[in-house]
């Protein structure tokens, strides 16, 4: 009994159960969902699609987790920042042309500039939130609305195409490696960020600032700087996600890159069992949350759900998952259990 309690009580128990539940639907509905074969020299199958397509979301969810933990609010500008990074990267590579078949400038410069632009966006958000103490959602609303406009300005309102094979590698495959490259980006991002959090005290600092900023400052932590840093990291990660997304379609589509992804990223954090009000956090939980969301989307495609009904099914599943994880619901269930355990006398006692 105590062992079972230990397992069900673990932080990551519910997120993992949710992911498994979504995948289980497929075992019944689409039996070939888990088939993985090698086709055309690369891994091929629904499950590969899930892992591949979730990569950008995983990267965003990592950044979103840190921001949520430190500031108790969310960065809703990440989707727009993705578009900005993609626009900057493609525009430098194309040298101002609408479509090019070879690089006009060095790839490294373009990527660095794109990440700098994304970091700048993050720094702007961080300044508003940490220094000026503006509500995170309000502060990031500025770039949420203006970001795509900036991206449009950068690309002159056009979709810039980079038709170079090496540019497509980040969103496709490198050489004869059968695993899609975005998967590596996601894994490397998660590993690096968790190493930084583990090996330095940053993780602990973020949690203390999130739990009680004033107390953290009183013990000597620079809470403003830490909040600011999380937003910069979140910006850079959004930049990486933007470059991967633009590499998939070898172009910068300022209107559509990362569209509505900020909501999915916040949802991933919530599904991961993290408290959206800040404080303690679990990076792994958010990552599992991100894969759950993509598994859900791919599942619905595989089950041939009509496009206009897709959001409804998604919403239903999300409601169920979030309800299962809510504290009030857990208490309610615990209450039912204890009533049952104590037997009839207690019920007759009429204690309510």
């Amino acid at each position, binding site marked *: 009994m105590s062992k079972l309690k230990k397992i069900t009580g673990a932080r990551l128990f519910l997120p993992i159960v949710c992911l498994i539940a979504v995948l289980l639907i497929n075992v019944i509905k689409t039996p070939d969902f888990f088939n993985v074969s090698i086709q055309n020299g690369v891994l091929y199958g629904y499950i590969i*699609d899930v892992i591949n397509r979730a990569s950008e979301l995983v990267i965003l969810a990592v950044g979103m987790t840190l921001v949520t933990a430190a500031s108790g609010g969310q960065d809703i500008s990440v989707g727009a920042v993705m578009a900005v990074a993609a626009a900057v990267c493609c525009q430098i590579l194309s040298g101002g042309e609408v479509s090019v078949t070879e690089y006009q400038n060095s790839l490294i410069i373009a990527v660095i500039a794109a990440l700098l632009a994304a970091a700048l966006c993050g720094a702007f958000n961080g300044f508003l939130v940490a220094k000026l103490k503006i509500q995170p959602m309000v502060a990031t609303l500025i770039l949420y609305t203006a970001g795509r406009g900036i991206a449009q300005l950068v690309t002159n309102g*056009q*979709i810039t195409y980079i038709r170079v094979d090496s540019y497509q590698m980040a969103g496709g495959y490198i050489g004869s490696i059968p695993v899609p490259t975005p998967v590596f980006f996601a894994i490397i991002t998660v590993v690096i960020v968790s190493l930084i959090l583990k090996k330095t005290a940053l993780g602990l600092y973020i949690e203390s600032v999130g739990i009680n900023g004033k107390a953290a400052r009183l013990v000597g932590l620079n809470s403003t700087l830490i909040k600011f840093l999380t937003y910069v990291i979140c910006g850079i990660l959004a930049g990486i996600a933007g470059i991967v997304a633009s590499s998939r*379609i070898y172009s910068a*589509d300022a209107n559509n890159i990362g569209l509505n992804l900020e909501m999915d990223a916040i949802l991933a954090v919530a599904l991961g069992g993290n408290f959206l009000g800040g404080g303690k956090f679990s990076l792994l939980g958010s990552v599992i949350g991100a894969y759950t969301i993509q598994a859900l989307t791919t599942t619905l495609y*595989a089950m041939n759900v009509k496009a206009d009904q897709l959001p409804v099914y998604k919403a239903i599943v999300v409601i169920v998952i979030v309800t299962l994880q809510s504290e009030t619901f857990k208490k309610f269930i615990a209450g039912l259990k204890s009533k049952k355990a104590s037997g009839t006398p207690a019920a007759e006692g009429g204690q309510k």
Partner: protein
Amino acid sequence: MKKKILAAFMAAAMVAGMSAINVAAEEEGGDVITVGFSQVGAESDWRTANTESMQTTFSEENGYELIFSDAQQKQENQLTAVRNFIQQEVDYILLAPVTETGWDTVLQEAKDAEIPVIIVDRMVDVSDDSLYTTWIGTDSLLEGRKAAEWLNAYATAKEIAPEDLHIVDIQGTIGSTAQIGRTQGLEEGVEKYGWDLLEQQSGEFTQAKGQEVMESMLKKYDNINVVYCENDNEAFGAIDAIEAAGKTVGTDIAAGEILVISFDTTNAGLTNVLEGKIACDVECNPLHGPRAEALIQALEAGEEVEKLNYVDEEIFAFDDTVASVTAVNSLDEEGEYAVTPITQEIIDGRAY
């Protein structure tokens, strides 16, 4: 202090904005025809080409004064723009509405001021048809029918039985005029000729979604031989997905190639037609300028004009298997439309 500076800056910007409008109004006069054009925004290549067409047609050399207003996707900006046009006493108002509803009041004001209003592209939904003079736009139902007729003619010429055409339909954003017309065109073909329509799923008019949806469809069905994409961007994504799965796109269905049909005829789309990756691309013509000018000239001469005006749209194909198709447009008029085999000269000679 900060707020004061900001307020002063905003006020200055407002004054500057207003004086700019005044200058525009003062420049009127003589026998120059003044046209006010309220455009939706600059969200796509198509829209940009549409704007440029208007700007080149209504140029000063041609004896026009064009007052251009970009609404940035917001109806309230368009309402303001139209009221400004009325105040400036323009001769004609061109309106490319962002939404269909909510135009009654402002159009009544224009009617009271006796300014003819020409609606461009999307339709307006008003209680009284006399509130606008005429409408110019594309006929997406005809576009869909053209594509379906082309597919039938092509299959007949290649001696492929209708039930051997296994089609998937990557739809546009559900509910948009283009999606409704193009989907209906295909569905009528399926009904009429008995094709095997495997699945319909929305790719939301974007490359990334088109790719994702196609990936999923390829895993579900191994007999797909026709992909009906409702715009070029979706077709790019679908082609990438097909090639990544180790299949080939082309026109030789019997040899196992997958035939792609698309719409919009963007520059990149036509380049794909030239390479044989897209078999047939039906035009969605953004060049409304000349047609609008013809209408204005007719109105100037006191002639009656048709309420609905469709711009001419072409069909481009990889080869000359089908010379022309017969299709019925939205006004129930049957017409014969030539199919142009694509060449590099045609692509180079096009404006967009």
